[in-house]
Protein backbone atom coordinates (compact mmCIF):
# COMPACT_ATOMS: atom_id res chain seq x y z
CA UNK A 1 0.00 0.00 0.00
CA UNK A 2 2.83 2.36 0.77
CA UNK A 3 4.44 1.40 -2.50
CA UNK A 4 1.32 2.51 -4.28
CA UNK A 5 1.60 5.84 -2.47
CA UNK A 6 5.11 6.51 -3.72
CA UNK A 7 4.27 5.69 -7.31
CA UNK A 8 1.10 7.68 -7.17
CA UNK A 9 2.94 10.68 -5.84
CA UNK A 10 5.66 10.41 -8.41
CA UNK A 11 3.01 10.31 -11.11
CA UNK A 12 1.35 13.35 -9.60
CA UNK A 13 4.60 15.23 -9.64
CA UNK A 14 5.28 14.31 -13.22
CA UNK A 15 1.80 15.30 -14.22
CA UNK A 16 2.16 18.69 -12.62
CA UNK A 17 5.57 19.22 -14.17
CA UNK A 18 4.27 18.24 -17.58
CA UNK A 19 1.43 20.69 -17.21
CA UNK A 20 3.75 23.51 -16.24
CA UNK A 21 5.99 22.76 -19.19
CA UNK A 22 3.06 22.60 -21.50
CA UNK A 23 1.82 25.94 -20.26
CA UNK A 24 5.24 27.44 -20.78
CA UNK A 25 5.44 28.33 -17.12
CA UNK A 26 8.66 26.36 -16.77
CA UNK A 27 11.32 25.51 -19.30
CA UNK A 28 14.22 23.07 -19.46
CA UNK A 29 16.35 25.17 -17.16
CA UNK A 30 14.14 23.91 -14.33
CA UNK A 31 15.11 20.38 -15.30
CA UNK A 32 18.72 21.46 -15.21
CA UNK A 33 18.21 22.55 -11.60
CA UNK A 34 16.73 19.19 -10.75
CA UNK A 35 19.76 17.50 -12.22
CA UNK A 36 21.93 19.44 -9.84
CA UNK A 37 20.15 17.93 -6.86
CA UNK A 38 21.55 14.74 -5.42
CA UNK A 39 22.47 13.10 -2.14
CA UNK A 40 25.19 15.63 -1.51
CA UNK A 41 22.76 18.47 -2.09
CA UNK A 42 19.31 16.98 -1.52
CA UNK A 43 17.40 20.24 -1.13
CA UNK A 44 19.12 22.21 -3.80
CA UNK A 45 16.06 23.00 -5.88
CA UNK A 46 13.90 24.14 -3.01
CA UNK A 47 16.76 26.21 -1.60
CA UNK A 48 17.29 28.03 -4.87
CA UNK A 49 13.57 28.52 -5.41
CA UNK A 50 13.18 29.87 -1.88
CA UNK A 51 15.84 32.46 -2.57
CA UNK A 52 14.15 33.23 -5.86
CA UNK A 53 10.81 33.82 -4.13
CA UNK A 54 12.24 36.12 -1.54
CA UNK A 55 14.22 38.14 -4.06
CA UNK A 56 11.34 38.35 -6.50
CA UNK A 57 8.95 39.59 -3.90
CA UNK A 58 11.35 42.34 -2.97
CA UNK A 59 11.70 43.31 -6.60
CA UNK A 60 7.96 43.29 -7.16
CA UNK A 61 7.46 45.52 -4.15
CA UNK A 62 10.09 47.92 -5.44
CA UNK A 63 8.50 47.99 -8.87
CA UNK A 64 5.13 48.74 -7.39
CA UNK A 65 6.56 51.59 -5.38
CA UNK A 66 8.37 53.02 -8.36
CA UNK A 67 5.14 53.09 -10.29
CA UNK A 68 3.15 54.76 -7.59
CA UNK A 69 4.24 58.22 -8.62
CA UNK A 70 3.08 58.76 -12.14
CA UNK A 71 5.05 61.95 -12.64
CA UNK A 72 8.36 60.91 -11.26
CA UNK A 73 8.58 57.25 -12.13
CA UNK A 74 12.20 56.24 -12.17
CA UNK A 75 12.28 54.11 -15.26
CA UNK A 76 15.99 53.50 -15.05
CA UNK A 77 15.62 52.00 -11.65
CA UNK A 78 12.70 49.94 -12.85
CA UNK A 79 14.84 48.52 -15.60
CA UNK A 80 17.51 47.55 -13.12
CA UNK A 81 14.96 45.65 -11.05
CA UNK A 82 13.49 44.10 -14.15
CA UNK A 83 16.86 42.95 -15.36
CA UNK A 84 17.44 41.30 -12.03
CA UNK A 85 14.09 39.59 -12.11
CA UNK A 86 14.59 38.54 -15.69
CA UNK A 87 17.95 37.07 -14.87
CA UNK A 88 16.90 35.08 -11.86
CA UNK A 89 13.71 33.90 -13.53
CA UNK A 90 15.64 32.63 -16.47
CA UNK A 91 18.12 30.92 -14.16
CA UNK A 92 15.41 28.84 -12.54
CA UNK A 93 13.47 28.19 -15.73
CA UNK A 94 10.55 30.50 -14.99
CA UNK A 95 9.85 31.20 -18.63
CA UNK A 96 6.55 33.02 -18.48
CA UNK A 97 7.63 35.30 -15.67
CA UNK A 98 10.75 36.13 -17.61
CA UNK A 99 8.79 36.92 -20.75
CA UNK A 100 6.52 39.31 -18.91
CA UNK A 101 9.63 41.05 -17.57
CA UNK A 102 10.79 41.55 -21.14
CA UNK A 103 7.51 43.18 -22.11
CA UNK A 104 7.57 45.24 -18.95
CA UNK A 105 11.03 46.46 -19.72
CA UNK A 106 9.97 47.50 -23.21
CA UNK A 107 7.20 49.63 -21.72
CA UNK A 108 9.65 51.12 -19.26
CA UNK A 109 12.10 51.99 -22.00
CA UNK A 110 9.33 53.99 -23.59
CA UNK A 111 8.45 55.61 -20.29
CA UNK A 112 4.98 54.23 -20.82
CA UNK A 113 3.46 54.46 -17.37
CA UNK A 114 0.16 52.81 -18.19
CA UNK A 115 1.93 50.05 -20.04
CA UNK A 116 4.20 49.49 -17.09
CA UNK A 117 1.27 49.26 -14.72
CA UNK A 118 -0.41 46.69 -16.90
CA UNK A 119 2.81 44.75 -17.17
CA UNK A 120 3.32 44.84 -13.42
CA UNK A 121 -0.11 43.41 -12.82
CA UNK A 122 0.53 40.67 -15.30
CA UNK A 123 3.90 40.03 -13.71
CA UNK A 124 2.39 39.74 -10.25
CA UNK A 125 -0.22 37.38 -11.59
CA UNK A 126 2.29 35.13 -13.34
CA UNK A 127 4.56 35.17 -10.35
CA UNK A 128 1.72 34.12 -8.03
CA UNK A 129 0.73 31.31 -10.29
CA UNK A 130 4.31 30.09 -10.48
CA UNK A 131 4.74 30.29 -6.74
CA UNK A 132 1.56 28.34 -6.06
CA UNK A 133 2.46 25.63 -8.51
CA UNK A 134 5.99 25.28 -7.23
CA UNK A 135 4.70 25.00 -3.70
CA UNK A 136 2.39 22.25 -4.86
CA UNK A 137 5.33 20.53 -6.47
CA UNK A 138 7.40 20.71 -3.32
CA UNK A 139 4.55 19.39 -1.20
CA UNK A 140 4.16 16.37 -3.43
CA UNK A 141 7.92 15.88 -3.37
CA UNK A 142 7.97 16.02 0.42
CA UNK A 143 5.17 13.52 0.71
CA UNK A 144 6.93 11.26 -1.71
CA UNK A 145 10.17 11.45 0.27
CA UNK A 146 8.29 10.60 3.43
CA UNK A 147 6.48 7.73 1.80
CA UNK A 148 9.73 6.36 0.39
CA UNK A 149 11.37 6.53 3.77
CA UNK A 150 8.65 4.52 5.43
CA UNK A 151 8.56 2.07 2.58
CA UNK A 152 12.09 0.89 3.10
CA UNK A 153 12.76 0.44 6.78
CA UNK A 154 16.11 -1.10 7.58
CA UNK A 155 16.27 -4.91 7.77
CA UNK A 156 12.56 -5.57 8.08
CA UNK A 157 10.43 -7.23 5.48
Amino acid at each position, binding site marked *: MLGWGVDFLRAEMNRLLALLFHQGVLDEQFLQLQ*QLQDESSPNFVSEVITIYFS*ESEKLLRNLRMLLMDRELSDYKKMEIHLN*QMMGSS*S*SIGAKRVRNVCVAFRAASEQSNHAGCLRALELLEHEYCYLKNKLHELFQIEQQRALASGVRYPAQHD
Partner: protein
Amino acid sequence: MDGHDVVSWRRRTHGIDALDSLQPSSDSGEAHVLAVDDSLVDRKVIERLLRISSFRVTTVESGSRALQFLGLDEDKSSGHFDGLNLKVDLIITDYCMPGMTGYDLLKRVKESSALREIPVVIMSSEKVLARIDRCLEEGAEEFIMKPVKLSDVKRLKVYMRRDSGERNESEAENRVNVNPKRKLREEEEDDDNNYDDSDLSASSPSPPTCSVSSSPPSASSSCLSSPSMAAAAAATAAAAAASASTADKRWLRMNGGD
Protein backbone atom coordinates in the same frame (compact mmCIF):
# COMPACT_ATOMS: atom_id res chain seq x y z
CA MET B 1 49.49 18.63 -28.23
CA ASP B 2 51.32 20.00 -25.30
CA GLY B 3 48.75 20.57 -22.65
CA HIS B 4 50.52 23.30 -20.82
CA ASP B 5 50.78 25.80 -23.65
CA VAL B 6 49.22 29.02 -22.57
CA VAL B 7 47.85 29.34 -26.07
CA SER B 8 45.72 26.31 -25.58
CA TRP B 9 43.53 28.21 -23.24
CA ARG B 10 43.73 31.32 -25.29
CA ARG B 11 42.04 29.62 -28.13
CA ARG B 12 38.34 29.87 -27.81
CA THR B 13 37.21 26.98 -29.82
CA HIS B 14 38.33 23.72 -28.38
CA GLY B 15 37.13 20.36 -29.44
CA ILE B 16 36.15 18.88 -26.15
CA ASP B 17 36.84 15.37 -27.31
CA ALA B 18 40.42 16.05 -28.20
CA LEU B 19 41.15 17.91 -25.05
CA ASP B 20 39.63 15.28 -22.82
CA SER B 21 42.68 13.26 -23.54
CA LEU B 22 44.91 15.97 -22.20
CA GLN B 23 45.82 16.16 -18.59
CA PRO B 24 42.91 17.48 -16.61
CA SER B 25 43.36 20.84 -14.95
CA SER B 26 43.48 19.37 -11.49
CA ASP B 27 47.04 18.20 -11.22
CA SER B 28 47.36 19.27 -7.66
CA GLY B 29 43.80 19.19 -6.42
CA GLU B 30 40.77 20.67 -8.00
CA ALA B 31 40.87 23.88 -9.97
CA HIS B 32 39.63 26.92 -8.16
CA VAL B 33 37.02 29.09 -9.80
CA LEU B 34 36.03 32.55 -8.71
CA ALA B 35 32.41 33.22 -9.66
CA VAL B 36 31.14 36.78 -9.69
CA ASP B 37 27.46 37.63 -9.87
CA ASP B 38 25.28 40.17 -8.14
CA SER B 39 22.29 37.82 -8.17
CA LEU B 40 22.08 35.47 -5.21
CA VAL B 41 20.02 32.99 -7.18
CA ASP B 42 22.64 32.91 -9.90
CA ARG B 43 25.47 32.60 -7.43
CA LYS B 44 23.81 29.61 -5.90
CA VAL B 45 23.25 27.98 -9.25
CA ILE B 46 26.71 28.64 -10.64
CA GLU B 47 28.26 27.46 -7.43
CA ARG B 48 26.41 24.18 -7.65
CA LEU B 49 27.17 23.78 -11.34
CA LEU B 50 30.85 24.27 -10.63
CA ARG B 51 30.98 22.04 -7.56
CA ILE B 52 29.24 19.23 -9.35
CA SER B 53 31.84 19.58 -12.09
CA SER B 54 34.58 19.08 -9.49
CA PHE B 55 35.77 22.63 -9.19
CA ARG B 56 36.47 24.43 -5.97
CA VAL B 57 34.34 27.53 -5.91
CA THR B 58 34.38 30.93 -4.34
CA THR B 59 31.46 33.19 -5.10
CA VAL B 60 31.43 36.94 -4.68
CA GLU B 61 28.73 39.45 -5.37
CA SER B 62 30.63 42.18 -7.14
CA GLY B 63 33.61 43.07 -9.24
CA SER B 64 35.20 45.03 -6.44
CA ARG B 65 34.87 42.08 -4.08
CA ALA B 66 36.41 39.93 -6.76
CA LEU B 67 39.39 42.24 -7.05
CA GLN B 68 39.78 42.23 -3.30
CA PHE B 69 39.75 38.48 -3.32
CA LEU B 70 42.31 38.41 -6.09
CA GLY B 71 44.55 40.62 -4.02
CA LEU B 72 44.19 43.59 -6.29
CA ASP B 73 43.16 46.73 -4.57
CA GLU B 74 40.34 48.38 -6.44
CA ASP B 75 41.90 51.82 -6.39
CA LYS B 76 45.33 50.91 -7.50
CA SER B 77 45.97 49.91 -11.04
CA SER B 78 49.13 47.99 -10.31
CA GLY B 79 49.13 44.30 -9.76
CA HIS B 80 50.31 44.74 -6.22
CA PHE B 81 49.35 41.84 -4.07
CA ASP B 82 48.29 42.34 -0.57
CA GLY B 83 45.92 40.45 1.62
CA LEU B 84 44.02 37.57 0.17
CA ASN B 85 45.57 35.80 -2.74
CA LEU B 86 44.20 32.32 -3.02
CA LYS B 87 45.20 30.96 -6.35
CA VAL B 88 42.40 31.27 -8.83
CA ASP B 89 42.40 29.23 -12.00
CA LEU B 90 39.44 30.80 -13.68
CA ILE B 91 37.14 33.73 -13.22
CA ILE B 92 33.57 33.50 -14.37
CA THR B 93 31.61 36.68 -14.13
CA ASP B 94 28.25 38.10 -14.98
CA TYR B 95 28.35 40.99 -17.40
CA CYS B 96 25.58 43.16 -15.99
CA MET B 97 26.41 44.15 -12.47
CA PRO B 98 25.93 47.42 -10.65
CA GLY B 99 29.10 49.40 -10.13
CA MET B 100 31.83 47.42 -11.82
CA THR B 101 30.50 45.45 -14.75
CA GLY B 102 31.93 42.11 -15.78
CA TYR B 103 33.65 43.91 -18.59
CA ASP B 104 35.28 46.36 -16.18
CA LEU B 105 36.45 43.45 -14.08
CA LEU B 106 37.81 41.72 -17.14
CA LYS B 107 39.76 44.82 -18.06
CA ARG B 108 41.21 45.19 -14.60
CA VAL B 109 42.29 41.56 -14.57
CA LYS B 110 43.88 41.73 -17.98
CA GLU B 111 45.64 44.98 -17.16
CA SER B 112 47.21 43.47 -14.09
CA SER B 113 50.54 41.82 -14.64
CA ALA B 114 49.84 39.53 -11.75
CA LEU B 115 46.42 38.42 -12.84
CA ARG B 116 46.27 38.69 -16.58
CA GLU B 117 46.91 35.06 -17.29
CA ILE B 118 43.84 33.99 -15.35
CA PRO B 119 41.22 33.01 -17.91
CA VAL B 120 38.04 35.02 -17.68
CA VAL B 121 34.67 33.90 -18.90
CA ILE B 122 31.75 36.29 -19.19
CA MET B 123 28.10 35.34 -18.68
CA SER B 124 25.17 37.33 -19.86
CA SER B 125 21.48 36.86 -20.33
CA GLU B 126 21.52 39.20 -23.29
CA LYS B 127 22.92 38.50 -26.68
CA VAL B 128 24.42 41.82 -27.65
CA LEU B 129 26.98 41.47 -30.41
CA ALA B 130 28.82 44.63 -29.50
CA ARG B 131 29.09 43.42 -25.95
CA ILE B 132 30.34 40.00 -26.95
CA ASP B 133 32.83 41.53 -29.31
CA ARG B 134 34.10 43.96 -26.72
CA CYS B 135 34.66 41.21 -24.19
CA LEU B 136 36.49 38.97 -26.60
CA GLU B 137 38.63 41.92 -27.68
CA GLU B 138 39.56 42.50 -24.10
CA GLY B 139 40.70 38.93 -23.73
CA ALA B 140 37.74 36.98 -22.41
CA GLU B 141 37.94 33.32 -23.24
CA GLU B 142 34.31 32.90 -23.86
CA PHE B 143 30.99 34.59 -23.61
CA ILE B 144 28.35 32.28 -22.20
CA MET B 145 24.67 32.92 -22.57
CA LYS B 146 22.62 32.59 -19.43
CA PRO B 147 21.02 30.51 -18.12
CA VAL B 148 24.23 28.62 -17.63
CA LYS B 149 24.00 24.87 -18.02
CA LEU B 150 26.10 21.97 -16.91
CA SER B 151 27.45 21.52 -20.41
CA ASP B 152 28.72 25.12 -20.39
CA VAL B 153 30.52 24.58 -17.13
CA LYS B 154 32.07 21.30 -18.18
CA ARG B 155 33.54 23.10 -21.14
CA LEU B 156 35.38 25.45 -18.80
CA LYS B 157 37.93 22.84 -17.91
CA VAL B 158 39.52 23.60 -21.20
CA TYR B 159 40.45 27.10 -20.11
CA MET B 160 42.05 26.17 -16.85
CA ARG B 161 45.35 27.68 -16.03
CA ARG B 162 48.10 25.21 -15.55
CA ASP B 163 49.86 24.71 -12.24
CA SER B 164 51.77 27.63 -10.83
CA GLY B 165 54.92 25.68 -11.59
CA GLU B 166 54.35 26.33 -15.22
CA ARG B 167 53.16 29.82 -14.67
CA ASN B 168 56.48 31.51 -15.30
CA GLU B 169 56.71 29.89 -18.64
CA SER B 170 53.15 30.94 -19.41
CA GLU B 171 53.86 34.54 -18.48
CA ALA B 172 56.83 34.68 -20.78
CA GLU B 173 54.79 33.32 -23.62
CA ASN B 174 52.04 35.77 -22.85
CA ARG B 175 54.23 38.76 -23.51
CA VAL B 176 55.10 37.35 -26.86
CA ASN B 177 51.53 36.67 -27.91
CA VAL B 178 49.79 38.95 -30.26
CA ASN B 179 46.25 39.87 -29.38
CA PRO B 180 44.63 36.46 -29.19
CA LYS B 181 41.50 37.58 -30.91
CA ARG B 182 43.39 38.67 -33.96
CA LYS B 183 45.32 35.49 -33.87
CA LEU B 184 42.14 33.51 -33.65
CA ARG B 185 40.65 35.26 -36.63
CA GLU B 186 43.72 34.60 -38.66
CA GLU B 187 43.57 30.96 -37.75
CA GLU B 188 39.93 30.85 -38.64
CA GLU B 189 40.74 32.06 -42.10
CA ASP B 190 42.96 29.07 -42.56
CA ASP B 191 40.67 26.45 -41.16
CA ASP B 192 39.44 24.02 -43.69
CA ASN B 193 36.48 22.81 -41.79
CA ASN B 194 35.23 26.15 -40.62
CA TYR B 195 31.57 26.87 -40.32
CA ASP B 196 29.69 28.20 -43.22
CA ASP B 197 29.89 31.78 -42.12
CA SER B 198 26.71 32.85 -43.75
CA ASP B 199 24.69 30.37 -41.76
CA LEU B 200 22.99 32.07 -38.89
CA SER B 201 19.89 29.94 -38.90
CA ALA B 202 18.31 28.65 -35.77
CA SER B 203 18.79 25.11 -36.92
CA SER B 204 22.54 25.32 -37.16
CA PRO B 205 24.38 22.48 -35.52
CA SER B 206 25.76 23.00 -32.09
CA PRO B 207 29.17 22.49 -30.59
CA PRO B 208 32.20 23.75 -32.48
CA THR B 209 34.65 21.11 -33.51
CA CYS B 210 36.62 22.72 -36.27
CA SER B 211 39.51 23.77 -34.12
CA VAL B 212 40.49 20.30 -33.06
CA SER B 213 42.31 19.34 -36.18
CA SER B 214 43.94 22.70 -36.52
CA SER B 215 45.20 23.11 -32.99
CA PRO B 216 48.67 21.66 -33.40
CA PRO B 217 49.82 24.04 -36.09
CA SER B 218 48.24 27.08 -34.52
CA ALA B 219 49.55 26.24 -31.10
CA SER B 220 53.09 26.28 -32.31
CA SER B 221 52.70 29.27 -34.56
CA SER B 222 51.03 31.47 -32.01
CA CYS B 223 53.96 31.16 -29.65
CA LEU B 224 56.10 32.98 -32.09
CA SER B 225 56.21 36.65 -32.65
CA SER B 226 57.64 36.60 -36.12
CA PRO B 227 57.07 39.87 -37.90
CA SER B 228 55.16 38.37 -40.78
CA MET B 229 52.82 36.63 -38.40
CA ALA B 230 52.16 39.80 -36.47
CA ALA B 231 51.65 41.81 -39.62
CA ALA B 232 49.28 39.29 -41.05
CA ALA B 233 47.41 39.15 -37.81
CA ALA B 234 47.09 42.91 -37.68
CA ALA B 235 45.86 43.08 -41.23
CA THR B 236 43.32 40.41 -40.54
CA ALA B 237 42.18 42.16 -37.43
CA ALA B 238 41.61 45.37 -39.30
CA ALA B 239 39.57 43.64 -41.94
CA ALA B 240 37.68 41.54 -39.47
CA ALA B 241 36.86 44.41 -37.21
CA ALA B 242 35.17 46.23 -40.02
CA SER B 243 32.34 43.78 -40.43
CA ALA B 244 30.18 41.71 -38.16
CA SER B 245 32.80 39.15 -37.50
CA THR B 246 32.70 35.45 -38.00
CA ALA B 247 33.82 35.10 -34.44
CA ASP B 248 30.66 36.83 -33.30
CA LYS B 249 28.49 34.50 -35.26
CA ARG B 250 30.38 31.55 -34.03
CA TRP B 251 30.02 32.73 -30.49
CA LEU B 252 26.31 33.05 -30.84
CA ARG B 253 26.05 29.56 -32.11
CA MET B 254 28.30 28.17 -29.47
CA ASN B 255 26.23 29.71 -26.82
CA GLY B 256 22.87 28.63 -28.03
CA GLY B 257 22.06 31.75 -29.94
CA ASP B 258 20.08 31.63 -33.10
